[in-house]
């Protein structure tokens, strides 16, 4: 495992919910990242976000890490959940709330 992959592994496990995105929750730089944030806000959980535009190593490495070609990427308790399309499908089916509850993720304060 390269240093970058190990570093990404650390980031993924640093919080219960981690979103790799373009931009920040207040200023998302891409429509898909913006959608991912909107969904997480609706689900109402605390999450950490990583702006891949600020970190070229992570931006490239994350695609290899999860075998997933695009950003955003959502991780819950260290496990890759999917990108914004999957988040949207899961949210609409109520599965994202279920997943958070199952994994014991704390609601946002």
């Amino acid at each position, binding site marked *: 495992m390269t240093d970058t992959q190990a570093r990404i592994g650390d980031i993924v496990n640093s919080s219960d919910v981690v979103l790799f995105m373009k931009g920040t929750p207040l200023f998302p730089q891409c429509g*898909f990242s913006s959608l991912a944030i909107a969904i997480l806000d609706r689900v109402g959980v605390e999450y950490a976000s990583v702006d891949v535009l600020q970190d070229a190593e992570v931006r490239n490495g994350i*695609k290899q890490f999860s075998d997933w*070609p695009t950003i955003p990427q959502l991780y819950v308790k260290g496990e890759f959940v*999917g990108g914004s*399309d999957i988040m949207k499908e899961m949210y609409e089916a109520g599965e994202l709330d279920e997943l958070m509850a199952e994994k014991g993720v704390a609601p946002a304060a």
Partner: protein
Amino acid sequence: MPMPAEEIQGLILAAFPDAQVEITDLAGDGDHYAARVVSAAFRGLPRVRQHQAVYAALGGRMGGELHALQLTTVVPD
């Protein structure tokens, strides 16, 4: 770098011959698409694996040449 819808459809069909593939050009610019793929090949696979299979069919273009593809995968009834 625009990519024609027919090319996307062709690549998906090559990997999933049974699939029904609907491509929508969202912005009319040949660069932002939505794809709905219905295939029995998805049966029993978690969503992440279904999407990964479609991305694999696109042979690395996703996230590069193809910036935006809103993907929906469906298992036929």
